[in-house]
Every structure is written in C-alpha cells, then in structure tokens.
C-alpha cells in the first residue's frame, strides 16, 4: 500500500480520497464460486468526479459498497481518506464515514416509516448541532420536494424517492459522495437539476463524486469515466460514452 501512496504523494502531494489496488470480491452461492471483481485498481483524488459505467450485473453496486466500506473485499488493498479499510472493524469503518461520506443507494433505502423530512434528517442526527431540520428542509427544497416534506416514501413516486435519497446523501455536506444511479428514475429535466446540484457541490465545496450511471449526459459531466468489465476498470474517453 505504501508504494501506491508514495507514487501519488510524489505527483500530487495530497492524500487520495480513495485508492484501491488488486481489489477482488468473490461470493459463493451454493457450490459455485462467483468472481464479481477481480484485481481492480482505482485512485480518486479529492475534488475529482468519476463516473463508473458497465452493463447490468457487472458488479458496479458491489464495487461501490466495497469502496464505501459497507462490505469487505475478498482480497486487495483499499484506503479511504488515507486510512486502510480492511484493517478496520465495522465500527472503525463507520466512524471513518461519519459525516464525511454520503451514499445514494440504487434502491434508495428510505425508511418506510419515516417522512421525507425525517429520512433526510436521519444522518444529521448522528452529529451534534441544532439546525438539523432547517438543513434537511433546504436540501429537500433543492431537489424540488419542498412541498412533500411530510410524505411517507410509499406516497412518493420512484423518482421522488430517489431525490429524497440524494438529499439525504448531501445533507451532511460530505467530502465524498457515492451515488448508485442517482438519475436512473428521473426524466431529463429533473435529472439535469439533480446533476447540477451535484456538480455545484463539487465545485463549491470540493466534494468528491463517485457515480455509477447509465446516463451518458451525467457521465460526460464527470472528469473521468471508467467502465467496469470482467471485474476490472477500464478508462474511457468522454467521447467514447454514448447512450
């Protein structure tokens, strides 16, 4: 691991937000062993925006979960904010994420019993501070749900739920946001609005973005595009990205 860091330290003098080397994930289902990720390398610097593309079942969600420390790799090295993840226990990984990492799940993962506002407030409540509600309101307003604060997830459409999930990921002003298809359910206009707020944050606060997407529009806005194929990441030129 140290040699990777040296390389980047020499070139950028900053600690990468995310770096992985030789990352692999295998699962056994029944008798068969399935290799989802195989010897994967990735380095994301602070403030960078990275899009990950790939066909369905390629392992994008698995990769994102691994990078965020929600799951443990089968082998390989992985560091988040300069701290090696596999060496940490569940608690250590959580502590590393607290307030610094936002996550938009592909299936949203909103709590069905909480209102939109309460869902967005949830991560804030782990941190001290008193203006939680206001901040959550602001973010819901930014994703266009200022009028739906008290609605339960099941009373919202798929796209609306997705926007709640996006608001929840950004509400803590994290340094790094993982988003699994954040515009997957949205029409072009709403999608664009979300994309704008993502990149506004990226510009203003230097938030690092790691996005999984099928949306070429979103992918082209990112500084780097990567394709997950056969368990490895391959760099793409922006113009290689098409609908």
């Amino acid at each position: 691991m140290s040699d990777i860091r040296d390389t980047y330290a020499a070139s950028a003098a900053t600690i990468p937000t995310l770096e992985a080397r030789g990352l692999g994930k295998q699962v056994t289902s029944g008798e068969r062993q399935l290799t989802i990720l195989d010897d994967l390398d990735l380095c994301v610097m602070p403030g960078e925006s990275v899009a990950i593309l790939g066909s369905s079942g390629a392992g994008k969600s698995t990769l994102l979960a691994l990078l965020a420390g929600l799951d443990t790799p089968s082998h390989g090295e992985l560091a988040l904010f300069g701290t090696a993840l596999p060496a940490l226990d569940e608690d250590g990984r959580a502590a590393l994420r607290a307030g610094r990492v936002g996550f938009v799940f592909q299936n949203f993962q909103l709590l069905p019993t909480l209102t939109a506002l309460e869902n967005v407030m949830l991560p804030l409540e782990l941190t001290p501070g008193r203006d939680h509600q206001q901040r959550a309101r602001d973010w819901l307003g930014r994703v266009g749900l200022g009028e739906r604060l008290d609605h339960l997830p099941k009373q919202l459409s798929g796209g609306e739920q997705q926007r709640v999930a996006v608001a929840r990921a950004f509400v803590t002003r994290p340094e790094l946001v993982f988003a699994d298809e954040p515009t997957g359910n949205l029409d072009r206009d709403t999608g664009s609005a979300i994309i704008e707020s993502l990149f506004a944050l990226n510009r203003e606060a230097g938030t690092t973005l790691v996005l999984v997407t099928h949306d070429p529009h979103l992918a082209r806005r990112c500084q780097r595009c990567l394709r997950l194929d056969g368990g490895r990441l391959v760099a793409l030129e922006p113009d290689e990205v098409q609908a």
Partner: protein
Amino acid sequence: MSTGSSLLALSLKGLRRDLRAGDVRALFVALVLAVAATTMIGFFLDRLDRGLTRQAGQLMGGDIKLEQSDPFGDDLRDTLRNAGLTLSDQVDTVSMVSRGDAFQLASLKVVDGAYPLYGKLRVDLGEGIIERAAGPAPGSVWIAPRLAQLLDVAIGESVQVGQRELTVSGLIDREPDQSAGFASLSPRLMMRLTDLEATGLVRPGSRIEYELLAKGTPAAVASVGELLTRLRQQGVEVEDVRDDQPQLGSALTRAQKYLSLSGLAAVLLAGVAVAMATRRYVDRHLDTAALLRCFGASQRQLAQLFAWQLAWLALAASVVGALLGLVGQAALLALLARFLPLTLPAPGMLPLLLGVLTALAVLVGFAGPNAAAAPAACQCAQVLRRELDPLPASAWLVVTVAGLVFGALLWLYSGDLGLAAALLVGGLIALVVLWGLGWLLLALVLRLATRFGARGGEASRALRLGASQLARRRQASLGQLLAFAVTFAAMAIITLVRGDLLSAWQTQLPADTPNYFAINIQPGEREGFSDILDQVADTRSALYPMVRGRLTAIDDRPAREAVPEAHRNDNALKRELNLTWRKTLPESNRLVAGRWFDTDTQVAAGSVPISVERGLAERLGVGLGDSLTFTIGSDSVTGEITSLRDLDWDSFRPNFFVIFPPGVLERYGHSYITAFHLDAGAHGDVLGRLVAAYPGVSLLNVDAILARVRELLAQVTRAVELVLGFVLLAGVSVLYAALTASQTLRAHESGLLRVFGAGQRLLSRVQGVEFALLGFTSGLMAALLAEGAALGIYAGWLDLAPRLHLWLWLVLPFGGALLIGVIGHLLSRGLRRQAPVQSLGLLGEG
C-alpha cells in the same frame, strides 16, 4: 389458475414460498404458540377443574348424594348405573353402643364395599395411622377414638351394636367424606351394611337415613339431571356436587374463576401475538395480490387464494401447536404430580379442539378481513405505488371481525354472555383510550427529544435519536405499545388477582377459626356456658338465640306458590329455618340493600322488620318490602324485609338466613348456638368439663372439615401459582414474538445508521433507549389498564374488595423497560455486528 384444484396447488406453493419469509415464520410461530398455550392451559384448567370438583365431591362422599328415610329401589339403581355412575349405599342412624356396663350414643355410618367413592380413610388398625380405601371388614367395626375412650374398649375387643356383637378392628382418625351433619354430634361407629340386619336396628319408626352416593364423569352426572329433578319433587333430598358446599363455595368458585380468567389471559396474549405477526404478513400479501392482479387474476381468485393460504397456515400451525400442547401437558403432569397432590382425571379432548379453534378464530379474526379485503381494494395502478395502506374500510373490518371473534372466545371461556359482552365493550373502550394515550405519549416523546437532545455528547445524542426513532415509527410503535401494554396488563392482572386471592384465603381461615359448634344451649345455661368459653376459648362468636320456624307465606300467598318455579323445592321451603334475633348486624355479615333496623319503634308500630340473606331472597324471588310469614309451633309471625345481607359461609360461625329485631321471637321456645376455637392441646380436658357441666349441650367438632378446606386452599394456591407461571411465560413469548416481527425494520434502520457512520456503541445505545422507552411507556399504559380492569374484575366478578395497587405504577414501567430492554438487546445483538450490505439486503433478497 382458473380451476379450483390449480388454485389449491398455487396456494400450497405460496405457503411453501411464504415460509421462507421472516414474517410468515413469525406468524407461524405465534400461531403455534397460541395453539400450544391455549391447549395446554385448557388441558390444565379442565383437569384441575375436574380435580377440584372431585375434591368437593370427596367432601360430600360422591358427585351426587340422594337421601331418604326408606331404602332406594333397584330401578333407580339400574338407571343410575346405566348412566355410567358408580354407586355406593350408606345408612346413617344413631344408636346406643355398649360394652359391659358402659353405654354410649354413637352415630352409626353403615357402608358397603364400594365405600369410599372418593379419597381414603385414615385409620389406626393397631400399628399407627394408615390410609385405607375401604371401610371395615364384615363382622368388624371402626370407631372414633373418643368412643373407644368412653366405652373403654381397645382394638381387638368387641362392642354390642343392637343385637349384634362386633369386633373393633380400627380407630378412625379421619373420614374422607365428613360433612357437617348433626348426626356426627355423637362419636362415630362405622360398620358394614351386611351386618346391619343382624343388629335389628332397622325397625319401623327408627330414625334411619338411607343414602345413595354416586360417582361419575361430569357428563354422566349431567345426564341424570332430569331424573334428579324428578326425585327432588318426590321428596328425595338430592345434593349435587356444586351445591351445598358453602364452606368451600366461595373459595372454589373464586379459584375456578381465577383459572378461567387465566385462560382468557392466555387467549388474549395469543391473540396479541398473532395480531402482531399478521400485520407484516398482510402487508406483504397486499403486494403479491397487486402483482397477481396485474397479471390478470380476478378478485374472486385472489380472495380464494388467500383464504386457502391462510387455511394451510392455520392447519399446519394447529397441528404443530396441538402436538406441542399435548407434549407440554404430559410434562405438566409430571410437574403436577410433584406440586399438586390431587389425583387428576384423564385429559378430555375438548381443550385440544378448543386450542385449535382458538387459533383458527384468532387467525381468521385478525388476518381474514385484511386478506379478503386486499384483492378487492387493490388496483394495479395503486398497487405498484403501494398506496393501499392504510385501508380505512378494512381496518374497521379487522376491528369488527376480530372483536366479534374475540367476544365469542370470551363467551366460550367464561360461559357468560353478559360478562363476555361487557368485557368486549370495556376492552374496545380501553383500546381506544390507550390508542389515544399512546399517540399523545409518542408525540410528547418526540417533542422532548427534538427540544432537549440537541446539545451534549454521544449519550444525549443516542437518547434523542432513540426517542425520535421510536416516536417517528408512529403506527408500528403505537401497535407495539398497545400490544405490550395489553401483555403487561394481562400479566399484571393475573399476578395481582393471585396475590389478593391468596391473602383473602389466608385471612379467610386464620389459625383461630372456630373449630367447635355448641348447640342446644338452654336460656338458663347461657351465662354459665358463656363464662366458661371466655376462660378457655381463644376466639368465639356471639351466642345466637335460635328459633325454628317454617316459611309458610310470602306476601300473604302460600310460599310454594309464590316462589319462582325453579325453586319450589328449595330446602328453605321444605325444612324449618333457623331464625334468630339481634340488635346489631352479626360479625362478617355485609348489608347489601336496605337498612339495618335502628330502633324498636318499628316493632311497636305493628310491622316487624326482618333482614334476609341475599341468596335466599333471590331464590324465593323476594326483595325489600316483601313480607314473609313463618309458622312457629302453632303461631305465626309476619315480617317485612327491610334489609338484605351477604354472609361469609366460610367463616365457620353461626349464620342465619333470617334475622328478626329483638322483642318479637323471645316468647317462643329457643336455645342458643355459638362457635368457638379450642387449641388441639386443650380439647380433652375442656370438653370434659363442658360436657359434664352441660350434658344437654351438643358439641360439634369441625376440625376435619377445616383441615380439608385448608388443604384444598393450599392445593388451589399451588394451582394458581402454576397457572400464573404459564401466563407469565406466555407473556414473555408474546414480547419475544412481537420484537422478532419488528426486527426487519430495525435491521434496516441500524444498517442505514451504520452507513451514515454510527458505531456499534451508539447503535446499541440508540436501540437501548428505544426499547427502554417502549417498555416504560407501555408499562405506564399497562398500569392504567390493569388498575382499571382489576377494579372491574374485583367488584363485578370475584366479589373481592377493590383496592388500588400503587406499586404497579412503579413496577410495570420500570420492569417493562428492563424486560423489553433485555429481550430487545439480545435480539438485536447480531444486527449491530452485521456489515451494512447484509442488514440492508443490498444484494440478495432486498
């Protein structure tokens, strides 16, 4: 999927798939629990009930006792035997028994080979006291030690009974069937029926009572009910096991009521468990229903499909639960044999059926309406956006159907329609009140949490987060609050009532309960007798004058015509009643209507006020203001009822159905009666003095009856403890089931909090706060519910004085917090360790 059979196949497949899902497993477990608990408690209650009845039967000598002054005919015997009853003949009489120059009046109990139908005799055959399940052999007699003393006779020597010489082969310590008949005033001599004729005691005009005792199953006893009524009309004295046991009466009925109350509590808990588990099941089925509907299934098909699936589930759970109940009941038997020295009759099949029925009813009541309403309500468009929930119409349907089902179960268990209806209505009102209260409490918690939790370290953050999580989960939390409140309240009530019952029983028969009755004390002897008693007895009742009179008219109509048809053969009409007079209300009597006579003015004015026992008044169909006419000797006295009283039949003191004011009955012939307590050590000496000084006074020892009643109370107490244990166990299982059912949601939550960066310690604290708050709040609500319910149960049902239980308000909230906290903590320990991908189900079953 159009034909019935393919629907059946589909439903079976559905069930198999269902069992993979957590919520169905929870429902399945809850159902199994419900069936097992109800069958087991049902079995237990059934057997215990029959065991207790048998105890009462033992005291009486059989389940049925017929008595008349002529021998019973063979036709009657055949009829009774054909009904499945075992018979025993007995003859009671009083006769002189002699040995040499010594003569003594003895009360003879002449028994056959079948005696005793219940229990065993304790007898000394020369080598210490042993138990025997038979009377003396032909040609020999067993006698009371007192008789042996009076006649100076030892075992192996003989006594003269009438014209027959019989060998004394044993000294009776205790008879299993010792009733308080006045025949037992003289010491006992027990002999065989085959020897009776030779004694020549059976002559026309001799005072002989023939008794026919019968023993059998409750069904057999019930089957001869009509015959018994006919016999009563023919003048035969008929005693049924449940009547005429006043000493045991209230203790037994209270115990039985307690047991059925516990049965009800078990059913209630089972209902709660099933209701908790059903919700998620139904929720998920709405989705399936919606999908199938989108694929083109008709409403009818969906309704049928779910009906079948529910039926399969109920069937599978019933079989497993019933088996468990049977096994549990067998295990119980082993326990019972150790704790409960009652010989219990074999289990009936009814409880098994009842358990299965209960589970089915509970399942149909709670899950049925939802499952049935779901397909009707769901339309594809709504479905996919899950806007179905809550379905207002079906919510009401659930409450109605579940309420009706539960009401029917209440009726079944209590056998009292009025009570069931009252309980149901009361329960619904309580539920609404609790719902509102729970809603308010949750709102308050949320308020406090958002207001005060903002600053401070991790501990206060956990407090705020836990509290707001709980309060925000609204419906789910409210449901749990209600379920836990009901569970805690059920556990508390059963515990409360047990405590109060036991202390009522303990105070009922204190150590100095009178064990002797003295009757036939002449007015001239009153002072002297009373003085001796003051010196020797540690407690004694007042001396009551006693005048015997026959009730002949009610409101100027012949008494037999005036009373309701059902009670025309009441003993009060057939026999002379003991009347007394008194200025003040006797000890341990309670006025329940009217006023006690205050002055003699009423008497002077010509109308005589009288006080009547409530039960008698009810049987005679009379109340305040009615007049009763008694024939005393050749005279008659009329009194107007001005008050009704309740008596403590188990007080072992003289009790009177009718009390006159002083100044009315004095001119008639009367004697006095009193009851007193003598220590075991003092008996012989003091009794000797009393008998010597007052030869005309009869003394009746009720030690044996007292011992029986005490023993019975001890057994019932143990039974009550055991049942309490069950109910508590069932309660804890409900908590466990309910918490398990809510586990998926909690897993989701804790997984998310983990993603947001919460550590294990914070998660554990948040959940701890949540569980403790849940337990505390539901404990508070349970205290309210329990207190209210206990008030109603005591006053309205168990006939105990209502009282407040302040400690409830401490124990329930804190105990609840602790209990839920511990169970919840244990259950979610695994969750906190999981990686978020697992608890969120990011991949896999999601």
